[in-house]
Structures are given as C-alpha cells and as structure tokens.
C-alpha cells in the first residue's frame, strides 16, 4: 500500500512533443552543468547570442531567475552576409556588446562560431571571455565536419538536458571547423570544463572563467 501511495503521488514531467519535420531533439550532458553553474550565482545575468526564443525566456526566468540579455549574433552575421561584408564582421562584433567587462554570469553561444571566419571568431571569443565574470560559464557547440551551411539553428530548451534544434535559412557559408586546440586558444582566459562529442558530430563545450 505504501509503495502504491508513493507511486501515485509522483507526477511525471510532461513528455516533450515529438520533433516535427526539420527539428531535432538532442539530449545534452553539458547544458545541465551550465545551468547549475549560472544558477549558483546571485542575481545572474545571462547573455544569449541566439535569436529570441519565447519558451527559453520563460525557462531561464523560472529556472535561474536571471536577467537575460539578447544579442542576436546570427542576425549580425546574416546582415553582413547579405551586404557582402563578411570581412567587416570582426569590427562589427567587437562593437556589438555595449556591456561592461565582467558583467555577465553565463553566455549561450550556441553554434555561432561555425559561421564566423577565424579572425571574427577570435575577436568575438576574446570579447565574450572579457564579458564573463569570474566563476561564470560559456556554453557552445562547434561543428566538426567541413560542409556548406545553408541554415542557422534556433535552439529551444525543452528541459535541463533536452534541446530542440530547428533551422531557418542562412546565406550559405562554409563552416569554419575548429579543432580543440583552436578553440582553447581562441577562448584564452577560460578553462574547458566539459567537452562532449555529440552524435551529430558537433562538439559541445562548457567553459569556465577561473
């Protein structure tokens, strides 16, 4: 009886909706750790480099009770691509973030670096590393296959360890494949806390600022 009572009192979380065409549901081992690190900070500030996603705002608001700053780097990249000014991206990205250094506790890069050339990536990584507070974390993933990218990804956080990845059109660009050594060098000043190779052959990384 006791066991039955316990069983009935357990409320299972709602199962995520099945992925629609063009969507992928991905289990993440690293993302829960990112949330845990940011959640430990008092009054955390979260910087999201992706497009604004309504459910994510609700998720982060409830889970982290944080201030969320949206800086859609993908929109910046697309504007530069349409204008034929990818070469000027490093200067644009250097001035995009008006915030003070050491003012952010968590950064969501998603896969932004796949769309940037090495110089722009280096500039962005250095700026992000400077924005992080000590003890803060940066989450991102890096593609490992050299292909032409025709879509950006929009990630919706379904649960702490479950991400729904959707795509939307991009001006085609060759992916910049970064090996682990390149990534570590780019994020100088940050330490790699987690690095996991996903089934999608992307490398999921968590960086910490000591």
């Amino acid at each position, binding site marked *: 009886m006791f066991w039955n009572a316990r069983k009935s009192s357990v409320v299972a979380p709602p199962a995520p909706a099945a992925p629609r065409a063009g969507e992928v549901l991905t289990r993440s081992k690293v993302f829960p750790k990112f949330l845990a690190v940011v959640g430990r900070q008092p009054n955390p500030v979260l910087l999201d480099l992706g497009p604004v996603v*309504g459910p994510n705002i609700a998720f982060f608001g409830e889970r982290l009770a944080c*201030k969320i700053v*949206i800086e859609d780097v993908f929109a910046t990249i697309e504007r530069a691509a349409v204008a034929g000014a990818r070469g000027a991206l490093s200067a644009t990205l250097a001035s995009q973030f008006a915030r003070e250094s050491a003012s952010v506790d968590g950064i969501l890069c998603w896969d932004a670096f796949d769309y940037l050339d090495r110089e722009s990536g280096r500039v962005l990584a250095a700026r992000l590393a400077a924005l992080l507070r000590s003890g803060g974390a940066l989450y991102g993933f890096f593609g490992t296959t050299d292909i032409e990218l025709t879509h950006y990804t929009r990630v919706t956080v379904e649960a702490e360890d479950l991400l729904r990845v959707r795509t939307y059109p991009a001006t085609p660009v060759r992916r910049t494949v970064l090996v682990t050594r390149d990534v570590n060098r780019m994020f100088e000043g940050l330490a790699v806390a987690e690095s996991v190779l996903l089934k999608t052959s992307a490398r999921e990384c968590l960086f910490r600022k000591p």
Partner: protein
Amino acid sequence: MWKRDEAPRPPQSAAPTPAPAVPEPPARVEATRQPGRDLVNIGKSVVIKGELSASEDLTIEGQVEGKVDLRQNTLTIGTNARITAQVSAKVVIVMGHVHGNISATEKVDIRDNGSVDGDLSAPRVAIAEGAHFRGSIDMQQAKAGEAKPAAAAASTPPHAAPATPHAVSVTPPAASVTPPAAPAKPPASVGAR
C-alpha cells in the same frame, strides 16, 4: 412592422446614449466604453509627443514619442503603432513597434510581428515566434518590485472613478492632447500623418 422608429419608446433615464453606428473619423482620440471596464483607442493617424498617462485600458495604433504610463491598466500597442517612448503599465501587449524600455507590473507580451528594441522589466514575459526583440529582459527585479504596486493597488478600490472623464492625459513638451470636447472636430494638437 418596419416602422420601428415610429413606435413609442419607453422613457429613458440619464443613462449614456449608445454610440452612433457611423464609423468615427480616424484622426481623433476616441473613447469606447465596454461593460465592466474602460477602453480607449488612439487611432493610427494620431501622433502624440509628450507624456501620456491614463487610468484605463488603452490601445494605441498611432505614434507616441515620449513616455506612456498606465500603472494599473493594460496597454495594447497595435499593429500600426510606432512607439518611441518609455512605457510602463500593468500589462503591455506589443503587436507594433516599440523603441524604448518597457516596464510592466504583471506581464509583457510581444506577439508575432511585434518588435521591441529596448529593455523589458516584468515578472512574466512572453515572446511569440516571429517577434523581433533586442535588449535585455529582467524578470527578477520586476518580481522584487512587484510588492509595491500590488500594495498600492490594494489600498485603492477596484474600478475607482477616474479623476477626469476619460482619464487620459498628455503632458506636453512640444504638443498637448486632451480628450476632444466636440466629437466632430479633432483637437488642433492631434497631428495627422
């Protein structure tokens, strides 16, 4: 049977006469009363520069530059609206364009095609797919500051009679808008695009 107008009518009290069926001209501030609550629409050809405050629900379809303050009510920024202002209200629904910070004591709701360039401060924020947003979202400070407006609301009776007939006021740096005295003639300070 068809000559309904000629039939004797029951005597009416001092209740307000129903609004005419003829559509209002767009270039005016119009007040539409709904049962149980007040609602004011600002038409799409209305341009307001200054400080707009109200104690009833407000829908803006025109342009506002300056400041919008509806502390206890819902502000709906319509699809045609272009707001360049600091906005504060109980609930803010954005379907048009806003350039400026939005503060709500209850909720900010940016619908699909809504666009906001500015910072949001509210305990609850909803952003629809297709909406544009650039800025920061602060749900924490809004939650902490929620106690004060809620306490203030508790001390005032619900649906308290507004101080002015329409309870919409505009404090002008450059121009002023007051509710029109004569419906046929829009006030001179309301500019049409």
